[in-house]
């Protein structure tokens, strides 16, 4: 099933990127994209746990209508921390900085990314930004929500806001540099014979994600800079008491933050596009359509930001245009779902953990995407926006979708990255538990939102309690289910069976090197002569 011809597979000398230098400095000053990926994985896991702890506090508090644990201000600070940490310190970097960094050069047949030192700088900027953001959130009283709406943020917030904004500003540079590195690498470092249409879909989605990282993040930087300046010097850019316009803030903020949500899903879609063909042992259906749908999502994603503002006071003409475009942007996502299903058709399917996560992704992402159609519908949005309906919608996509994809990737490439196999039964159990815990947590929130419970409420009317209790119960299952992989994956590092170079029998250049790969990835540059997903046609 080899998709490439490489001149020789280096013998396993036990000298992998993991053992090539064992001092702390050799890790902290590494240029190796694979080590940088590991560094990222450690830091984003830490941030995920912090953001998850905040989520736990939120769901605990919402068990009772009066708020079980926290006073209103603390609750507001908690959901602010949850949003800021999960968006910028977990979801935006997640798959790109871990699996993108690790796999992209391997998938391209290259020895590293185009700019390895800038890659390391990105990690330092990211980690520093995380520490700055957390310092601000934990020591100061920042309770504006992750959206920092004006004039609440500049006029009514504590000075710690500026610290948090600065942290996110620095975080933005990390994103921009990573995006730049990936785009240039995909353009210039493809191995001989590796044309664009022979690239794995993961590379196409990484490319689309990277373009958004590069072009949208600067707008966020500018916007937050203006908010900070307004807070510090009281000049009216957004604050109407000083002659500014609060809606200008929303336009600028969402101009970044809507494309940002595509940063937070496209890589997951890329992962699913790798896993489905592998475990159906069949080439992906509609390769060109899936590839270009990623590009379409990235492009159209830049012109739908106003759908966050349907009731904000934007003009009805703007609302009509943004609603229409929001329906348009749903089409490429639908294309992907249909193509994934078509890949399953007449395949030869097995259900290892990566496949379970990928199938879960398809179901949960579909629900999330379909509820997006509800919200794109203008008259429906007038009722449902700013309620738990929206909260459920985006959690279905970001958690049900992206986090499932992250776990899918973690399991799929674990043997390649670590050289160990994880325990399959535990992994399948965790995948199923996550699926059920997730649905129990977030499906009741659609009902809550439709019934009218607004979001960001520390307390609520008693008639909403029953659904809140279901949701919190689900959250406790989800929390346990997320801890499980931490445990058995950790165990596998020490006691797991050693992995062969291609435990899944998958196509793709990354499977043509040992597990784990040597520092330079390939002894000789591979030469690609076959199309991607070159599985032999399944027969009876």
């Amino acid at each position, binding site marked *: 099933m080899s998709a490439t011809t490489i001149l020789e597979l280096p013998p396993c000398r036990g000298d992998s990127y993991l053992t090539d230098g064992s001092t702390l400095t050799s890790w902290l000053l590494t240029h190796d994209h694979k080590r940088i990926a590991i560094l990222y994985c450690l830091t984003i896991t830490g941030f995920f746990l912090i953001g998850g702890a905040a989520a736990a506090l939120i769901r605990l508090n919402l068990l009772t209508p009066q708020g079980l644990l926290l006073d209103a201000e603390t609750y507001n600070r908690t959901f602010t921390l949850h949003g800021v940490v999960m968006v910028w310190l977990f979801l935006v970097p997640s798959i790109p900085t871990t699996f993108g960094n690790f796999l992209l050069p391997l998938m391209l047949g290259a020895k590293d990314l185009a700019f390895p030192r800038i890659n390391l700088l990105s990690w330092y900027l990211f980690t520093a930004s995380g520490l700055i953001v957390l310092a601000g959130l934990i020591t100061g009283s920042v309770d504006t929500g992750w959206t920092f709406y004006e004039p609440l943020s500049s006029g009514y917030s504590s000075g710690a806001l500026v610290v948090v904004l600065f942290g996110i500003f620095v975080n933005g540079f990390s994103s921009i540099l990573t995006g730049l590195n990936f785009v240039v690498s995909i353009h210039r470092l493809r191995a001989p014979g590796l044309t664009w249409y022979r690239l794995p879909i993961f590379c196409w989605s990484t490319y689309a994600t990277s373009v958004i990282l590069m072009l949208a993040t600067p707008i966020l930087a500018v916007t937050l800079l203006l908010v900070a300046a307004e807070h510090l010097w009281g000049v009216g850019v957004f604050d109407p008491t000083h002659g500014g316009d609060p809606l200008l803030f929303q336009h600028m903020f969402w101009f970044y933050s809507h494309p940002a949500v595509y940063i937070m899903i496209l890589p997951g879609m890329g992962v699913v596009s790798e896993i489905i063909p592998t475990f159906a042992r069949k080439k992906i259906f509609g390769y060109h359509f899936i590839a270009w749908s990623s590009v379409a999502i990235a492009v159209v994603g830049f012109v739908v930001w106003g759908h966050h503002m349907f009731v904000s006071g934007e003009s009805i003409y703007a609302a009509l245009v943004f609603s229409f475009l929001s329906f348009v942007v749903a089409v490429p996502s639908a294309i992907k779902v249909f193509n994934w299903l078509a890949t399953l058709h*007449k395949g030869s399917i097995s259900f290892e953990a990566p496949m379970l996560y990928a199938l879960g992704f398809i*179901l949960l992402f579909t629900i999330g995407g379909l509820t997006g159609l509800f919200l794109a519908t203008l008259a429906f949005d007038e009722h449902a926006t700013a309620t738990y309906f929206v909260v459920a919608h985006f959690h279905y996509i970001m958690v049900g979708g992206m986090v499932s994809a992250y776990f899918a990737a973690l399991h799929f490439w674990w043997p390649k990255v670590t050289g160990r196999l994880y325990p399959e039964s535990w992994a399948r159990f965790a995948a199923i538990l996550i699926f059920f815990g997730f649905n129990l947590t977030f499906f009741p929130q659609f009902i809550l939102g439709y019934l009218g419970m607004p979001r960001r409420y520390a307390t609520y009317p008693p008639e909403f309690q029953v659904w809140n209790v279901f949701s919190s119960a689900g959250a406790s299952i989800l929390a346990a289910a997320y801890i499980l992989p931490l445990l058995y994956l950790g165990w596998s590092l020490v006691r797991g069976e050693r992995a062969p170079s291609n435990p899944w029998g998958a196509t793709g250049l990354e499977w043509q090197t040992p597990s784990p790969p040597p520092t330079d990835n390939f002894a000789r540059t591979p030469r690609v002569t076959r199309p991607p997903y070159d599985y032999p046609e399944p027969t009876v």
Partner: protein
Amino acid sequence: MNGGVPFLPPSASNFAGEFNILFAGLLAITSAVLGLVVLLMFRFCAHYRRNNKTADRGHQTRKSWRWEVGWTTGSFVVFLGLYAWGADIYLREHHPPAKAEDIYVVGKRWMWKVEHQGGQREINTLHVALNQPVRLVMTSQDVIHGFFVPAFRLKQDVVPGRYVTLWFDPDQLGTYQLFCSQFCGTAHAEMGGNVTVMAPGDFAKWLAANASDATLSGDGAALFHRIGCDGCHGAGSTVPAPSLAGIYGQPVALRDGGSALADDDFIRGAILEPAQHAAAGFAPVMPSFAGQLDEEQVVSLVAYIKSLGSVPR
């Protein structure tokens, strides 16, 4: 709260019924799609699982583009239909009828202040008459708030620095939940209240019982005099200033070219930022009253100016 169908909030506005049908339609379509996805996934996973050797895997589809164009077009057509449906209701939600009564709302941390034209004032409650369309003219004293009545299926962000409007025709008696829907700080979750729809007779009694010394425009007239607006805009003034009689609802030619409609928001702006609203043919010498008036006082001035004659919206 009022009863009703479980899983449905009460339906108390002219839009709620249409909304419920739209919701049912969206639910039906998306459930069908989801059902299809689930069905296909389970069917394919079961039938084409690896150890099912009897499944027919031959004749793999070669030309995929027929399917691609098919499901792309299909999706797009369905989406267009949903778009048009939602947009149609939305457009009507933003075109109040001429007979809608204006009621003013000022949101501030953390309460809603409601002012009826007859001078009745309420805090965190809004009383309206059955089947009498109402247009809320709203602004915020501080940060962005959100006026949300689930029973009406309507919400509107209330923005500082300008007026926004929201109209509805209440068609069911009862008391309905009002929420603040745009995060506004510590007590955001407490900034709620009620909207009460009363029979016209009861509403008239309520108005009478809650009347204050002056109507809203009466208060505005007094303020107009007290802070000296009539020094320039009154009859017999020696300072050239635009006449305000009948100005509401008319287009105004602006000093720097162009024109604007003298609606509630324009009049508010002219009081607080006169330099930006200077009328053509007059020197821009009107002083700004920003910082000297709170939003409720501005509301009374706007009501007064409206009472000087207007054209239908």
